[in-house]
Every structure is written in C-alpha cells, then in structure tokens.
C-alpha cells in the first residue's frame, strides 16, 4: 500500500489527502463488481457472437477496467480550471466526431452510433456527455451584474445552442436515450443555476410533451412503450427474461455462473447485466450495487453542497446527474419499472467507450470535489 505522509506536497501526495477517498473506493468497488459480472455474463455473449474465445470479451473489458482506473485517477488530478479548458476542447472534438458518425458511422441494430477510429470503434456520444456537463456549468455559472440568472447573456445562448446541437446530433443517430440524458443534464444545471421556477415548470412541460411527441413520431419508441404497458407485446421478451432472472435469484442468487437467463438475453452482458447479477448473486449483491450508486451520488452531492464555487457545484451536479440517471434508468429497465431503454450500467456493463467515458466523468467529479481552500468566487 502506498502511504503518503500528510506533509507530502508532491502531486500524488496532495491528491491523496484532498480527494474524496470514500467515493473513490465506491467506484473501485463498482469496477470490481463489473469485473466479476463480466466474467460470468460475457462468455455466453461471446458464444452468441461466434468466432470468439469464451473469455475474449471478458479479457477486453478487464483491460478497459484498468485503463478506466488509470483514467479516473489521471483526470481527478486536474484542477478545475484545467478541467474546464480540457472539456471545452473535448466537447468540440466530440461534436465533430458525432457529426462524422452520421456520415461514416457503422450501423448497428438500426442506429449509427459507432465510429471507426484507426481500427478501434468508439462511441462519441459517451465522451460528449461529461464534456457537455462541465462546459455547460462554466457557461451557466456566469452571472448578470446583479447576480441573477444570466437570462440574456450570450453565454446562455451558447449553452442553449450547444444543447440543441448535441441533442439534435444524438436524435439523428437515433439515440433517444442519450438525447434524454443530455437534456436532463441541461435541465438540472439550469435548475441549479437559478432559473426561475416558472421557467423550470415550463421546461418540464415542454420535456414531457417532447417525450409524448417521441412516442408518436418515432416508431421504435412507441414499440418500447407499448411493450412496457402490454405484457403480450412482441417487444417485451427481454424484460420478461430479466424479471425471470431476478425471481430465480432470490435472496442469495443461484451462484456465480449458475444463471440460465443470460443465455436467453441478447444484451445480457451490456444493457441487462443487472439481471445477471440478480440471478447469480441475488438480492443482497444487487442492493449492494444499488447502494454503491446511491452512495456515490449522494455523498458527492453532500460535498458539493459545501462548495463555494458555483461552477464546481453545477459541473459536479451535472456529471453526477448523468452518472446517477444512467444507473437508475438501466436498473429500472431491467426491473420493468419503465420501458426498456438501452443504457449501460456505469462501470459494470460491457463496453470500452462507456467504461472510459464513465471513468473520465467520475474522474472529473473527484477532481471537483477535492478539498480546496479559498477556492470560492467566480471562476
């Protein structure tokens, strides 16, 4: 174990004493669960895809886990100002990549979300989310001279333009889930930045109407929602298997590797990995995983509440909203609490882009929640 003396003023020494070590530990725990679940869930998926060794997907994912851990720590070393600069550039890059997917993307399961960059397929939308959350926080933390919400300042207009551009690109893929997440980040940050409650209500209404509009305008959305409401609908197969998995699991689960439903679930290693956890490890482990997500979100919120800097408050909340919502939506889909929406379970689901982007996002949260003395005031 590396030990840092409190007087150690090296980069890592300062980091160790100021970073939120509890949250860091929780994220590492999640990654551990992720490694465990990917070992049991991915061999079936590898067989299904064919032409792969049983543990090839698991090996890949574990490599990404370590890369992710390095990324997490690396990003958490940054100070807020550097972070802000990095994210502005990062957002610009991901917007360009997103636009490129529309022209050069590979179509997988009816949507073009992947881009082939020197032999590696990446999902730019994953990277865009944390970049957007931080950039947005920077734009919204500017104030009018009287300190009120900057309704008519150019920064606000830029923020709206960025949201529309990003949301529009995501809808074109189409990836309604990511567009929803980006809009949720936008909404939460606007809310925290002090948008008047009337406007908050108005935006909530518009958002609701937008979802209803999506139901009627996008056939795959209406199919999902019909599938949720009608248990006999054709699209409810995955959810039924998922519920079956949780029922099979009971309190303690069937034991690692003993699950059967994972063989029937096409997305058992990604969107429905929580069901595999439910079947093989049971209620207790699932509650532990849920608890870890709740702990990370709420503990980081409690640290942000003590924050003196509006930018840090907004950025941290935006990032945690993304993280928490993604976990909630994934778990709620698996538990049939809402229509299925393809969304990865942070740090647990299979997927390199998702893992690295999550690591970047949580690295940013850790960077923002580090103890800084006298760091208040406008950035």
């Amino acid at each position, binding site marked *: 174990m590396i030990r840092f003396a*409190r007087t150690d003023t090296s980069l890592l020494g300062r980091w160790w004493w100021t970073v939120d070590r509890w949250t860091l530990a929780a994220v590492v725990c999640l990654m551990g669960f992720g490694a465990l679940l990917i070992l049991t869930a991915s061999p079936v998926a590898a067989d299904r895809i064919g032409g792969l060794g049983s543990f090839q997907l698991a090996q890949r994912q574990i490599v990404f886990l370590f890369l992710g851990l390095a990324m997490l720590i690396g990003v958490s070393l940054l100070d807020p100002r550097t972070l802000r600069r990095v994210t502005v550039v990062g957002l610009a890059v991901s917007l360009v990549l997103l636009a490129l997917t529309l022209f050069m993307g590979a179509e997988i399961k009816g949507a073009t979300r992947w881009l082939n960059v020197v032999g590696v397929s990446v999902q730019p939308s994953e990277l865009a989310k944390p970049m957007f959350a931080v950039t947005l926080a920077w734009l919204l933390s500017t*104030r009018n001279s009287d300190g009120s919400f900057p309704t008519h300042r150019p920064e606000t207009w830029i923020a709206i333009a960025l949201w529309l551009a990003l949301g529009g690109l995501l809808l074109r893929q189409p990836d309604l889930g990511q567009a929803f997440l980006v809009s949720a980040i936008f909404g939460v940050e606007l809310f925290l930045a002090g948008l008047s409650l009337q406007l908050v209500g108005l935006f909530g209404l518009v958002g609701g109407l937008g979802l209803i509009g999506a139901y009627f305008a996008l056939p795959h959305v209406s199919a999902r929602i019909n599938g949720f409401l009608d248990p006999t609908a054709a699209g409810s197969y995955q959810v039924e298997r998922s519920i079956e998995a*949780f*029922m099979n699991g009971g309190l303690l689960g069937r034991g690692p590797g003993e699950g059967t439903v994972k063989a029937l679930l096409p997305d058992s290693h990604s969107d429905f990995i929580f069901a595999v956890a439910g079947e093989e490890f049971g209620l207790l482990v699932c509650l532990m995983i849920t608890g870890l997500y709740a702990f990370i979100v709420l503990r980081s919120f409690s640290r*942000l509440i003590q924050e003196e800097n509006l930018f840090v*408050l907004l950025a941290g909340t935006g990032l945690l909203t993304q993280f928490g919502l993604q976990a909630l939506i994934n778990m709620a889909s698996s538990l049939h609490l809402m229509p299925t929406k393809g969304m990865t379970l942070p740090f647990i689901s299979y997927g390199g882009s998702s893992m690295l982007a999550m690591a970047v996002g949580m690295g940013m949260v850790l960077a923002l929640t580090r103890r800084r003395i006298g*760091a208040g005031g*406008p950035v």
Partner: protein
Amino acid sequence: MNRRVVPPSRPNCYPVIDTLPPRKFAGHGARVQLDGSAARALETGRTRLLAAGLVFALAFTVIGGRLIDLTLLSQNSEPKIAGGPTAPQRETGRADIVDRNGVLLATTLPTASLWANPHKVLDPYDAAVQLNTALPELSHAEILAKLTSEKGFVWLKRGLTPRQQYAINRLGVPGLQFRQEPRRYYPHASLTAHSVGFTDVDDNGLAGIEQSFDSKLRGAVKPLALSIDLRIQHVLSQALTDTMAEFKAIGAAGIVMDVRTGEIVAMTSLPDFDPNRPGDAPADARFNRASLGVYEMGSVFKIFTTAMALDGGIVTLDDRYDTSKPIRIGRFTISDFKPKNGPLSVPEILMYSSNIGTARIAMDVGALMQREFLERLGLMLPSTVELSEVGHPMMPSPWREINMLTISYGHGMAVSPIRLVSAVSAIVNGGILRPATLLRQPANTEIPGTRVISEQTSHQMRQLMRLVVTHGTGKKANADGYMVGGKTGTADKLIGGKYARDARVASFVGAFPMTEPRYAIFVMVDEPKGNASTYNYATGGWVAAPAVRRVVEQIGPLLGVAPIRTNPEDEESELLYVRASAKAEKVAAN
C-alpha cells in the same frame, strides 16, 4: 468579504491549492455587490441541489424496493402471460396447404435420406446384412446390388423416419451418408387426397392443388388456404364410405358447395388413397370421380329441363302433360319407371320423375333453346375449378331430336359432378352462376357471377325441389329442420356402348335450407346393389338420398345453418300453390 474561512486545524484540508483570480473587469464596488449576489446564487444552487439529492435518494429507494419485491415477494407468482416456446418459421421451400379454418392439410418436413458411396463401403456384404436389420423393408440382395455398383452415389432409402436414421447411425457402417431432404407430409392422409393432391419425392406437385399451384407453393411461406372445411369433408367422406359398404358399390362421390360463393366446402371421391404413398394406390383410387369423372346424371337433369321451360315462359306450373303412353321415336321408346295414369302437372312431373312428361316439356322447349340453356349453365365446358383433373363433358353431335328428348331427363350427355353442382347452385341461389373454387374466398365479399335464370324462376324451382323431398322421390333426404330440397337421379351406365341393366349411378342433388339456400349438396353412388332393406331397389331415392339426409343432419350445425322448426301445416301452405295443382290432378286421375 463574506468568504467562509476554513479553520487551518482541519487536517485533510490542504492550504490554498487553487486560487482563482477575481474577474478583471470588476471594480471594487462591483466586487462587493458581486460577492453578495454570488453567495445568493450559490445559496439557490445549494438548496436546489438538496432537492435533486432527495429525488435521487427516492429513486434509488424505489429501485431497492422493487429489487426486494421481485426477488423475495414475487416468488411463485403466476406469470403475466401464459406462453410456451414457439417454433420458428421453417424455411422448407414449399408452403403449407391449410383448410378454410387453418387446419394443416399438407406440410413439408425436413427428413434424412440415406445414400452410399459404394467405393467407400469396406465390406458390402456385411454392410448389407447390418442395414437390413435397420431397414427390413429393403431386401438384402437389393442393398448388396446397390453397394457393389460401380457408381459413386446410390440412393438407399429416401425420407427416413428419425427412428430409422438413429438406427442406421448406430450401425456405424462407413460409406453411408445422410442428406437432408424436405418431404411433403399430409397429416389427414386420404381425407383430402383428391383436392390437395400429392407431390413426387423431389417435391414436384403431381396432382390436385399441389400440381395446379406448384409454382406458387414453391418458395412461398404463407400457407395456401383452401375452401375445404375439414369437418364437413370428414362427415361427407364418412357417409359415402358407409353408403358404399352398405350397397356394395364400386365408388362414390360427393360435393358440398356454398351456393353464394361457389366455394367447395367438401369434395370426396371414393375409393381414395393415401397421398403420403401415392405410388401404392391403384389408378382407380387416384381417379377423382367428383371433378374428372363425367357421368350421365339421369333424372337430376329434369331440374334443368323444368327450369328452362319455366324461365323461358314455355310452361307454367299449371300446365299438364299426358304421360300415360310411352313416347316412341325411331327405334327408341321413352317410358316411365313408375307410370302414372293420366296427365301430370309440371310439379308432378318433377315430383314423380316422369321421363315421358319431361320429354314432352323438352319438345315444347326445343333443341336450340335447350342447348343454349345448358351452355349458359356451364354444362358444355370443363369446370374452371383450380384442378388439372377436370373432366370434359360428353354430348351428342349433331344434337338431334332424340338427343334433345333423352338429355331432358339426363341421358345422352355426361357432365362432371362439379359442373352439375355449380349449375344447381345457380338454379337455387336466385339465378346467379358462379365459378366453382377450391380456394377460400375473403369473407363478406360479393363474388361476381352471371345471371342464368330469373329470381322468380329460382324461387319456383326451390319450391319444386322442396316438393320432391316432401312428397316425391326424395323423401329419404328430408333432414329434419334443414328444409332439404333436391332431385334424385338413377342412370344406367353405358358399358361397351350399351346401357347395362344392373350397373347404374344413383345420385341426389339438392340444397338446403330451401327457404334461403346456403349450401348445395351432391351425392353419387357408382354401381350400388340393392339389398333387403331397400327392397332391392338401388335408385337415387333409396341409396343417395338417405346419405344426403345423414350428411345434412351432421353438417347443418357445423355450418351454422339454423334448423327451422316449422309446423308441417305451415310448410304445406307455403307449397300450397304447387301442391294444389298436384292434388287437383290426383282427383282428376281418380
């Protein structure tokens, strides 16, 4: 300055790491104001963050609750929907054939076929001995001959059952191989053999629908729905089989047709065969008597003679004809089977099936009009039903006077049963002739047809045909409540150019219910022998009519025809008009 000062005593707070400079444009006064308002903004942010935190906490609690609900509390609960594994759609290269209710009539199963490469068989003698144990139907010598041939490929047996394949696999004889081949299978075997037909071992349609729709069935996935109703088919087939046995007949045929659409609901030809093994059946069994066979139909043709005379305004129901003396024309004599004295009215001629009376009506109608009318009814052409087994009608050429007279009561012209039923359907359904079809027609659509007689004539013919069943030769066809109407027929068979005395075709054609006909029914028995219960009669009235009654009694409920419980007196009054003239004649005759 209202910045919070963190006490330096807190150990995990490192002194100023990251001081952000104040805004360049802010002057001193503005700075104070900004700080105050910035704190307000921060305070709003914090309060709202608390709200967001509460929402998140609530959501995670819901997830936890749902987890407990699913894993612990939902155990052994009823599944929301009952369901079993569904078989995936098979790609067999040939579509299924189903009846009008979707019951499978023909399907394709993947089977294994056994072949051998004789060059690779190490010990042909031993291999033949072993194979013989698994396939006892092949002789040892036969197998040995194949296994010692010079060819590189010989079929040993095609279309193995899974059990046979397993047995052969277990033998482990080298040089034997399986090839997956689709095989046509008919689950109802002989029941629909003549309409569905069969295929050869290479899945080429050779007969029936299998042949006429061969190219459409190939590669299609959606099943082809026939107009046949398997339940009706079964009832008809059973009644005909029983009748054939009872009268020691050599064959029988029957058809049930929807008079509104021309759909053939059942079609049977006996003897039949198993389409799964068509090669084993004699040619006579494969012959479709209902569509390919043409027969002199005998007295059932009197329906057409009466209809043409009524429709052409040649006779009315009141007209009478003298039937006391046989008609002599050249070397022919036309006489009645059961002569009646004195003149008979038109209804009575049909009721008692008087040949003399019908021939006299035909004389009034004339050969030209008779021929034109029968042509209009479609009796001069082969049926357009979707089968290649359709019989060409046989008729005299030239159409002499004697032909006109014999054809009026169904001799001297042979038509297929399917044409006959179509024509009778047109007579009773209000006068519209529709093509016979074996394909299910969409429900509630008007099938186009051509008018052959007027509504009024059709109405009169319905009354007359009902009269035949209530008072005439067809009494034994009277299925209680179903208002059967029709006409019996008995025709001597033409064997070697001569009419045979003891070989005849007994038939009944009719429809039910006569108040508003829904289905036409035809039963024909080939060479029935009379027995004690029929006083040695083997006529249409004794042989075919009882079979019709049995069929109608069973299929009426299946077809959704409501039985009509009429007071016999009421029905009498319905038929008052025709009966009155008949009665009057009786009085006159006495």
